[in-house]
């Protein structure tokens, strides 16, 4: 008797699980966020989540998103990928097959975005990675898009800037060989710099592995060379350690970074050591205008710190996704068909006016956008220094 009750209960529970639409009042569009809420770069996940919350608020204020003749709510599902490649694929599969999302935003860093992109592509679900700059993320994957420029563009920007600004003829590089993003970017930079100054002009090309805390041996080697500046395309949790140890070992020449430096957390961790350094990024918060300023002010008021590039790019990527959903002209309710329609619409978007610049996707799913070189000013703000367009 009791066993039968248990079975009945289970059937009831199963029924409820399978029919979520029955007990939801208005229909909602589900978008998954595959982001690093814990792990090495939790601030990146936090920024992405906050940006999504702001989108949600704005959609609510507008009274929902109109797709064809129907109005929908937007529902974001935040899933933590722990900043690990294997968790990012598991998270993508969960979002696609269990949560039945229409599209996915993220993962943010290339190390997770490259494997997760593969999953999204094979499950035919549109994905926009707001922050992944490695070319492999979108290569030969019609369902995968990104919201930022590529490392193949960023590498030469760094090389040109250093040549003009520091009059650099020789460069040193220190990067994490076990992570796709630093490795890819370091190689693109090396290629670009050697094209400008001839082979052998990158006099030190030193590596370490993720989670290393001591770089003294590598930095000693770099110190012994006659490099004019050090390029280190690392994440915000490693940059302070690298910069501080370089200074402790007597390095006085410039150090330059890439878009992974641009986290709101960098200056909390790095302090005075990072002031006066340059890095390339997607937008500069100090001195922004128009819609960008509006976003920054709103974010600052709500979360009490200046949003970093990840937050801005995530904001743009989500609106891109919503725009594509609107452009489908109506959802059928058949998730496979809808996902295909959203993907088709994403490729058709022209001159999307985002807060990080205008976006039009190439057939690979990459927008062509300008890069910004930012200087960290004495107050610790990221100040606009120069803009470089393709």
């Amino acid at each position: 008797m009791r066993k039968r009750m248990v079975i009945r209960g289970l059937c009831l529970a199963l029924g409820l699980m399978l029919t979520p639409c029955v007990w939801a009042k208005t229909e909602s569009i589900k978008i998954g966020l595959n982001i690093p809420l814990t792990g090495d770069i939790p601030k990146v996940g936090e920024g992405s989540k906050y940006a999504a919350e702001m989108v949600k608020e704005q959609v609510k204020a507008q009274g929902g998103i109109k797709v064809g003749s129907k109005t929908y709510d937007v529902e974001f599902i935040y899933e933590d990928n722990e900043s690990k490649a294997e968790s990012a694929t598991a998270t993508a599969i969960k979002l696609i097959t269990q949560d039945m999302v229409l599209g996915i935003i993220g993962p943010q860093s290339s190390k997770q975005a490259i494997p997760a992109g593969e999953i999204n592509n094979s499950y035919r679900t549109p994905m926009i990675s707001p922050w992944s700059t490695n070319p492999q993320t979108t290569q030969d994957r019609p369902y995968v898009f990104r919201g930022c420029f590529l490392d193949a563009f960023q590498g030469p920007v760094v090389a040109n800037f250093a040549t003009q600004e520091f009059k650099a003829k020789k460069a040193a590089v220190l990067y994490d060989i076990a992570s796709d993003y630093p490795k890819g970017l370091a190689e693109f930079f090396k290629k670009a710099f050697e094209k400008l100054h001839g082979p052998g002009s990158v006099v030190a090309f030193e590596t370490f592995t993720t989670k290393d805390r001591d770089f003294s041996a590598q930095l000693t080697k770099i110190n012994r060379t006659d490099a004019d500046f050090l390029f280190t395309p690392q994440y915000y949790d490693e940059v302070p350690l690298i910069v501080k140890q370089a200074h402790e070992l007597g390095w006085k020449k410039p150090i330059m970074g890439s878009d992974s430096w641009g986290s709101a957390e960098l200056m909390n961790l790095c302090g005075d050591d990072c002031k006066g350094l340059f890095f390339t990024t997607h937008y500069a918060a100090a001195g922004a205008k128009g819609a960008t300023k509006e976003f920054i002010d709103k974010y600052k008021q709500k979360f009490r710190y200046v949003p970093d590039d990840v937050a801005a790019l995530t904001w743009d990527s989500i609106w891109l996704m919503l725009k594509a959903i609107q452009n489908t002209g109506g959802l059928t309710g058949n998730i496979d068909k809808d996902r295909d329609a959203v993907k088709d619409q994403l490729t058709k978007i022209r001159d999307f006016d985002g807060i990080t610049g205008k976006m039009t996707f190439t057939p690979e799913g990459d927008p062509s956008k300008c890069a910004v070189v930012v200087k960290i000013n004495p107050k610790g703000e990221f100040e606009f220094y120069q803009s470089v367009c393709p």
Partner: protein
Amino acid sequence: MDIQSFFQNLINAMQWGSFYALIALGYTLVYGVLLLINFAHGDIFMVGAYIGFFVATFLLGSYAFHLPTVLPPHVVFILTLLITMILTAGVGVTLERVAYRPLRRKGAGRLYIVITALMAGLILENGNLALLGASRRAFPDLIEKAVYTVWGVTFTNVKIMVILAALGVFVLLEAIVRKTKIGMAMRAISYDRVAVPLMGIPIDTVIVFTFILGSSMAALAGVLFVSAYPVLEPYMGAMIGWKAFIAAVVGGIGEIRGAFIGGFLLGFIEIFVAAVFPSTFRDLIAFGILLLFLTFKPTGIFGVARAQKI
């Protein structure tokens, strides 16, 4: 490698090895007395670093509730070290009370206690993650950093302090274990855990004392570590803890000299391999060498063979 880079890397390796040595001492002390591999020790190091962070920021007056006077930074540093060592010793003793002692009382095999230690380490890591979140924290600069360059070799006052602290701790622990009564009791327990209590030695007191020593050394290492590498994260103790354990085994676990030499040896190998080869070879070569050491001397450099399990 020219002679200046050699000396530069020598100093780098001394600092890096000091941390391994300080943590390895904790493994070796507990093992020497209880024959227990306290796998939670790396995480006690992490807890020490976090306690140090909160003590330091409190003393600097970063919270609403703060001290009436403003202390100079070096006084804050010394106070931070002392308070952190005391508090972390408390954590170590609590761990022993809650996790290890009940099992020991029930006469559980050593294997179960080792697994409990592994679990305790994971609980500390993830407890910290749940309690404080995944955000990195920056340890405040308590000591005004001074960079000296002597004959092309550059070092900071923090580096010198770390190396001196490791040497000082070594001398202190050797003295405690070799010269004092409680040290003698510690050594006696490791020889025979059945006979020693019969001689009227309070075995639990000695074990608590051992945990106090080991944990406070981990706290010292934690505060010094974040002074040198000022980014705190919940998993910072895991990798360095494992490596320090290997250092302790290579030196001969249970021997204080062994932990000390093993820690420095590992530090030297790691830094010099990274200085000569690409960094991807570092762990491969480092642990290859250590494996060779163990092949020829399975009990470690200073270890004495004993019949035992686990």
